[in-house]
């Protein structure tokens, strides 16, 4: 059934029906990336491992900021950010880049953007593994009780990333500048997210005093990053290794608060994803004359 406009329900069922295509696009992307390299996927493990080792060295030897195991805090947030950033920036131009395919073969076009998100999920998993190995080496236990929040938070992250990737890939067809604009936006976005600095060291406490905490959570990346940090870094308050004074790192939320925030975010992300599919469907009709 082909008609001028497909309903959201048919879009979704088409997507589900073509999940095999999504898988083969992801695997072929990864295969092409590591074609001819003997170590293959091992390279993508080596790179985060090296990053982790470097940060460890820098923050515990050269730039002592007094936060014990700061590298774990940093890496937990970076994992989340990397997944978001690589997926969105690679998906933004994907429909323009694969114009030949889009004009000749019939399949739900959003699969192209989703395949880029899928590839970054694989790198995300690899980084989680690297982090787990690192935690085992340094003997730092994650917050086991909070671990069940990880899948919820991850699904929310996935849907959030996918929504933005899908919409951006369609907009870029009409406005090619968006690709470059997105690079800038992503950089700014990174610095308003509590990845490098701690939440309690940002403007968040100041907002809290004025009752404006919600403002900080306009950025949907914040609760996801905080959840990952809570799971892997664990400590909300630590004693500074240099001054001996207590340092507030993470918000002292109870598990219930974390759960509420994550479930709320998940609901939001699901809604956002559906909206993204509708927007994509509206924009998709004129691809042919713009590519």
């Amino acid at each position, binding site marked *: *059934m*082909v008609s001028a406009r497909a309903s959201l329900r048919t879009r979704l069922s088409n997507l589900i029906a073509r999940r*095999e295509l999504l898988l083969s696009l992801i695997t*072929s992307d990864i295969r*092409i990336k590591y*074609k001819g390299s003997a170590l293959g996927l091992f390279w993508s493990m080596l790179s985060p491992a090296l990053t982790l080792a470097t940060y460890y060295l820098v923050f515990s030897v050269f730039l002592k900021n007094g936060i014990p195991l700061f590298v774990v805090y940093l890496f937990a947030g970076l994992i989340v950010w990397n997944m978001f950033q690589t997926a969105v920036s690679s998906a933004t131009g994907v429909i323009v880049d694969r114009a030949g395919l889009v004009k000749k073969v019939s399949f739900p076009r959003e699969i192209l953007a989703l395949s880029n998100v899928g590839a970054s999920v694989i790198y995300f998993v690899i980084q989680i593994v690297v982090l787990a190995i690192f935690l085992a080496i340094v003997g730092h236990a994650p917050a086991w009780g909070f671990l069940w929040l990880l899948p919820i938070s991850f699904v929310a992250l996935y849907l959030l990333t996918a929504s933005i990737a899908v919409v951006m890939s369609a907009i870029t067809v009409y406005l*090619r*500048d968006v690709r470059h604009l997105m690079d800038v936006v992503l950089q700014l976005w990174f610095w308003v997210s509590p990845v490098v600095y701690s939440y309690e060291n940002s403007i968040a406490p100041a907002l809290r005093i004025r009752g404006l905490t919600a403002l900080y959570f306009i950025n949907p990346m914040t609760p996801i990053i905080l959840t990952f940090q809570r799971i892997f870094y664990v400590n909300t308050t630590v004693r500074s290794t240099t001054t001996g004074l207590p340092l507030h790192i993470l918000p002292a939320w109870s598990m219930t608060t974390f759960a509420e925030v994550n479930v709320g975010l998940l609901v939001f992300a699901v809604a956002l994803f559906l909206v993204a599919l509708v927007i994509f469907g509206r924009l998709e009709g004129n691809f042919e004359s713009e590519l």
Partner: protein
Amino acid sequence: MTNVIEVQDISKRFTIHHERNQTLKERILHPRSGSSEIFDALSDINFTVAQGETLGIVGHNGSGKSTLLKCICGVLKPTTGQIRLRGNLAALLELGAGFQHELSGRDNVYLYGSMLGFTRKMVDAIFDDVVAFSELEHFIDTPVKFYSSGMYVRLAFAVAVNVNPDILVVDEVLAVGDERFQAKCIDRIRRFQREGRTILLVTHQADTVRAICDRAIVLDHGNMIADGPVTEALRIFRERLLGDVIDHRPGGSGVVTIDGLSAPSGSFEVRHGSSLRFDATLTCDHAVSGNLVIEVFTRTGLLVSRNDAEASPVTLRPGVNKVGVELANVPLLDGVYDLNVGLVEPQGATMLAWREKAASLQVLYDGRSSGVVAIESSVTQW
């Protein structure tokens, strides 16, 4: 008979940008600049295809054939209307469009299969057939970027026909590949027909349509001008092409019409092996020279002969002209044949006038051979 394809009121409108304002700066600075033009590639197309039918879509370049096919395959969204499909569809719009150059033939078979909507398991089941059909056993693990264009096409065609779709859509791809592979493709298409699958074929080669299709539709500037049996549709197609040629002649003069054929004996009846004389009457409004083309078709639409146009030049005066034609030693066997007569320009093959089925030729034959022509054979036992 169930309809597997239902095309209802399909229109497709393109906006052609003459000046592309695709950067953000230009869009902001000149929100409405850059002229654009609306182009209706298809207007209100309606037709259905029954299961097991082979439909040819013919039309000149730019008539909307490929747009229509892309709408049916779902690559393009029609502006209005809808298309219903029953069963799965494999489309060959451009062979190997989904191939990834860096990947091996094997990986591409799976990738292409999944693009056509088939699962890995289904591709597993037909993988050996695909490789056998494409004859690429030795190169299946080589990246396709090292393939020749012929190998490329063979692999893509092999995937599309071996996934056994309910509907196969083919766009001008039979023209590629060597003669032997073409024959193999036609063979496979015939097997598809025997199996009761539906085929949609786009081409501008009348001979291909005549050879394969049961029915044809003709598109002209986005409108469907004919839908019917192949011979009838092709006649309309030719007349339209001819009409276009006349329209596009400089000065608008030089209309030549073929008024008809007449035989001195009063009938177009000829005994096998003897000759037939007839006259063609042509009217033109100014002097023109050209070559007379004569085609002989069987009633089933098989082209028996098309003469060499260059060998029969004629010069016409303004007014009514009579041209004598002789068909020498007609080698045809018993049956009724159709004669098409045309006038083409001396240089190039631009058609000046055409008359389809200008006359019916009745051939009488007493011998025992059957078929279309007699080939004398003598058998000697050594």
